[in-house]
């Protein structure tokens, strides 16, 4: 079972690397003779977006199979696991990334205030040039994403608390009584206890549902940003940085685990 889960993630990392290379090439050729047209950049963004969608589609089958595994995935390193939110990255991180990129280097421009460098930064086609109406849309998306994130977070909390309730708790108490009165009847964990399997199943199904909801929010947030709000050049910049961040965190988290003696 775990092999398929690991393979799915490994494959995703490969795709991320390949897409990143393409995005970086497009960025580096921007000032050269092979500068990409808006249309080409838009296609590149669509390709990345399609890969996201395909990955989440493959993932969805595994999520339905074993939701709990995605809350602490054995295929992620410790650092990756620690920053997971319901099986993946927080959708609000996309917006934080935009804030970081759209303000990057402004301080340096400020030193050239006498020149017009600062003003020209705001006319840049990249994320530094995020316009007033774009900022309005980003903020609106930020707020609706935070609301949705908080809603899912609160559902996770309720689900976790539900473990101390029906249907699991009565079974625990009942098994305890059985054990006291007749040790030959049902042991917890004998695997054949249909009632326990059913009870656990009700929780794990709910967990799968939450990961699916979180995945939908991740996709929807990315889609809104990349297709609806950002211009193609800005979208390429955001995608490239996002992938760099993900791959670096994966790599450095892995190194960290190795150095602490618990390799993945």
């Amino acid at each position, binding site marked *: 079972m775990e092999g398929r889960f690991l393979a799915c993630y490994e494959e995703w990392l490969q795709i991320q690397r390949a897409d990143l290379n393409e995005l970086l090439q497009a960025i580096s050729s921007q000032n050269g003779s092979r500068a990409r047209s808006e249309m080409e950049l838009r296609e590149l963004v669509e390709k990345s977006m399609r890969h996201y969608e395909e990955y989440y589609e493959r993932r969805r089958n595994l999520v339905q199979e074993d939701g709990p595994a995605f809350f602490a995935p054995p295929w992620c390193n410790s650092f990756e696991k620690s920053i997971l939110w319901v099986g993946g990255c927080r959708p609000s991180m996309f917006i*934080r990334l935009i804030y970081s990129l759209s303000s990057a280097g402004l301080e340096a421009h400020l030193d050239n205030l006498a020149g017009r460098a600062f003003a020209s930064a705001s006319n840049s086609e990249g994320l530094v040039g995020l316009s007033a109406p774009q900022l309005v849309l980003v903020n609106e998306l930020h707020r609706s994403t935070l609301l949705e994130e908080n809603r899912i977070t609160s559902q996770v909390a309720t689900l976790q608390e539900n473990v101390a309730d029906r249907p699991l708790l009565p079974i625990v108490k009942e098994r305890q009584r059985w054990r006291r009165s007749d040790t030959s009847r049902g042991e917890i964990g004998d695997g054949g206890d249909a009632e326990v399997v059913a009870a656990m199943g009700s929780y794990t199904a709910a967990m799968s549902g939450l990961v699916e909801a979180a995945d939908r929010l991740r996709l929807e947030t990315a889609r809104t940003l990349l297709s609806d709000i950002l211009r193609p050049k800005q979208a390429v910049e955001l995608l490239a940085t996002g992938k760099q961040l993900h791959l670096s965190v994966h790599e450095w988290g892995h190194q960290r685990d190795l150095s602490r003696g618990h390799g993945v």
Partner: protein
Amino acid sequence: MAEICCGVETAALKSCEPGSRAARRRRMEIRRLSFVAGAEDEPSEKRQRMDGGSSSGSAGESGTTPGGSSSLKPPVMASPELGTSGRRPRFGMAAVCGRRRDMEDALSIRPDFVRRNDRVSARHHFFGVFDGHGCSHVASLCSDRMHQVVAEEVETLASGAATSPQAWRVAMERSFARVDAEAVDGSGERPSQDCRCELQPPRCDHVGSTAVVAVVSPTRIVVANCGDSRAVLCRNGAPIPLSSDHKPDREDELQRIEAAGGRVIYWDGARVLGVLAMSRAIGDSYLKPYVISEPEVTVLDREEGDECLILASDGLWDVVSNETACDIARMCLQGGGGGDDEEEEAAGEGDGLGDASCSDAAVLLTKLALARQSADNISVVVVDLRKKCKRAPTTPTMTNS
């Protein structure tokens, strides 16, 4: 285009806008179409200016919030005596949640918000920044109500009193007291999606908001402030603060709090009773009488050298000095205030477009605050105060529709 601006703008201005996801998506689809349409038939420079300008499209829309607009809208009358003062104000704004996970700031921009009659003949424009704490609902209340209350107070002034600075002080003080009363008793409350309060408003007494309000008329600027948001005037290239932050460790505020029997305790900065890091606010009934809602009011005559007015929440002022803010705003206004402004103004008459340089200034200040790691919500309003009398007046090419 105006409709798009309306949808986008209402969301930006009103922190409690419910806005379903579907509705948002629909708006974005429209927005996207407009980008595409622009790309096909307009040179990119022009398009960028339009993009920038549409953010300030609220000039026409921000005053028309559902349920409260009709009584405020002045009867459409082209008063010839208004002359140059009859223009819409040029302004821009930006408001972001930033690095916080709650949006508690609210903006309110209400052009021409006082009904004109024989006592009040000039156009007065209202600008307000409200930075909530505890929850967003008091800030929302302020952005929904403050301009209405100020307008009512101004309209009740005796004939000719609208020109007296003292009358303005009284009107502002009364307005703040009335809105504070509404915040405390919860009567003006409206349901808000963002409101995180579990308690119903009357019992939700740990919630409050700063309020910095500027009323701009052709001859004068009136600023009323309560809390640690700030208004700064750029005059002849230098910043003049028009409000003084109400911090608990400000000498006179400290004395006032202690005289009322309160204490200022240093716990993560100076705080009233160790709780609130400002000495005046709207709401916060549990900290009365130490925390008061009485504003400090500045009344200032406009001068030739006035360039712009900046109102912002502490998300900006915590990391950007008055001087820097002034420099950046001036630079944007000068950059955008070239010879093509008349055209922008003409286009702007009907739908509120044409404040691109003010928007640029507000956005740039917001980005700078983000670059400097501001950890708070950031809200910025920039109002262009430059008089454009140097240029020959143009015949209006578009009528107000």
